[in-house]
């Protein structure tokens, strides 16, 4: 199996996102005939033989890294990740509709609106994991902010006074609610996408198109049922 990974012209390698997107990703792959049972098990392996293609599993934020470098031919990850890493060139082929979520600006319940805060103080301090997306959003509106980069549990920052608000990804809104935060502004919405390496997109085009076509069809029929 490990030989297959280094072979030129071997099975197509798909970078699959571990974490919140994984189960929906595997469900989709099941529907198009890829073997996913092994990935679902509790194996510590990172690489699986999915029959027609090799599945390599990683954090969603690493998918653009592997795919843009050609270490994986195709991959599945969130649009939020692709935007945050917009400087990694990959082909974005199919909106898979999985893992829908929104990037929002949230502040503590009861705080004045961010615009009012901005008017009074001139500047806001915002904690986020998504520095690039936040930077672009505020710059576009000409709002002056100080971005504080944190790696996780972003909700904590405004509670203890590290920041006035946060820019974060929200699926259900439960974490926000349980931490006394509320959505003030929506920045963008995101879903899972099928991406492809620039070179694989050309040289392995039959396989890439075939996979993209089947996934597109699976997404369409899932939407109908």
């Amino acid at each position, binding site marked *: 199996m490990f030989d297959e990974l280094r072979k*030129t*012209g071997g099975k197509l390698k798909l970078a699959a996102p571990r974490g919140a997107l994984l189960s929906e990703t595997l469900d989709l792959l099941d529907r198009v005939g890829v073997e996913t049972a092994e990935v679902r098990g509790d194996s510590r392996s990172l690489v699986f033989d999915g029959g027609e293609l090799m599945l390599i599993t990683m954090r969603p934020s690493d998918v653009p890294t592997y795919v*843009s*470098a*050609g*270490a994986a031919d195709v991959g599945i990850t969130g649009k939020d990740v*692709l935007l945050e890493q*917009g*400087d990694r*060139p*990959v*082909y*974005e*082929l*199919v*909106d898979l509709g999985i893992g829908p979520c929104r990037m929002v600006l949230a502040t503590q319940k009861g705080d004045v609106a961010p615009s009012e805060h901005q008017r009074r103080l001139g500047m806001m301090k915002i904690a986020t994991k998504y520095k690039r997306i936040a930077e672009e959003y505020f710059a576009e509106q000409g709002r002056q902010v100080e971005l504080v980069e944190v790696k996780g549990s972003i909700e904590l920052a405004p509670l203890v006074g590290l920041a006035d608000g946060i820019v974060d990804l929200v699926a259900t809104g439960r974490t926000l609610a349980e931490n006394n935060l509320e959505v003030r502004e929506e920045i963008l919405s995101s879903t899972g*996408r099928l991406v492809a*390496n*620039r*070179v*694989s997109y*050309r*040289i*392995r*085009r039959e396989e890439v*198109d075939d996979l993209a076509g089947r996934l597109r069809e699976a997404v369409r029929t899932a939407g109908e049922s």
Partner: protein
Amino acid sequence: MRELRAIEAALIGTFEGAGFREVRTPTLEYADALELADGGSAGAAYRFFDERGELLALRTDMTIPIARLVADRFRDLDPPHRLSYVANAYRAVTPQRGELREFGQAGVELIGVAGPEGTAEVIELLDRSLSAVGLEDAVIGLGEDGLWTALLQDAGAGPETIDRSSELLVSHDLVGVERVLAESDELSAESVAEAAGLIQLRGGAEVLERASGLGGAGFAEALARLTRNFEAISARGLARTVLIDLGMLREIGYYSGATIEVYDETVGDVIGGGGRYDDLMNRFGLDLPAAGFTLYVERIHKAQLERGVTAGAGGDRVR
């Protein structure tokens, strides 16, 4: 270093064999000259002032310096001019991505031969150059710069929709392209589906057939240009297949007409590129059509190592 030298020697030998004489230009150019040629993306990363306060920049490629050189010094000679180079160029990098600020380029410029004949001559030489460095399996992609704009204009899209979708196409966001087209109320649902399908078309001659009949007169004209290029290339009997790619839109701002990219499966990035730039010379005051390609020497080297081949393996094919 010996391996890099072997690549450079094989390429220069191939270029010379085809009548392309090597030239050298200064590493430093006036920033104005670079911007004159390509206001958009040339945006040189490394700039300095000279002793009189003039802004200088490290060259970002060799095409613009050679265009300037020809306009300065070849004005009185009869075209066509066949020139080649092996030189370093300089571009900005994203930190920690293993990108090179300084990288080797080897390529040619064919100045003064218009249309399919010029394009085909350049692509034939590219084909032989790839063989000369042992990359028999490398693929040449062929696009046509005017296709996308023509298709959208024919379908009734306004300038803003064209700009926004082109930007997304350059960054390869096909999902975003379709969304922008669907959200603008200028296009019918069929036109959106047609455009979204078109940019995914890539392959052999059958691609041209599938695209014929799409769009209107403007698109038909652009497609006819691409078809003529492809036919002129096919007539020359290349060692490899040329992949027609209707969704290819290159970032550099001086292309007009044919665009070229080179791929090798062992390298995740393009290993070369080029195309036609019929308006470029004009910006330096000399109205001549031009076309050329460049190969990225370090990436060629990487492909050779991955494939276990060396330069010169196919060198005897040089006619």
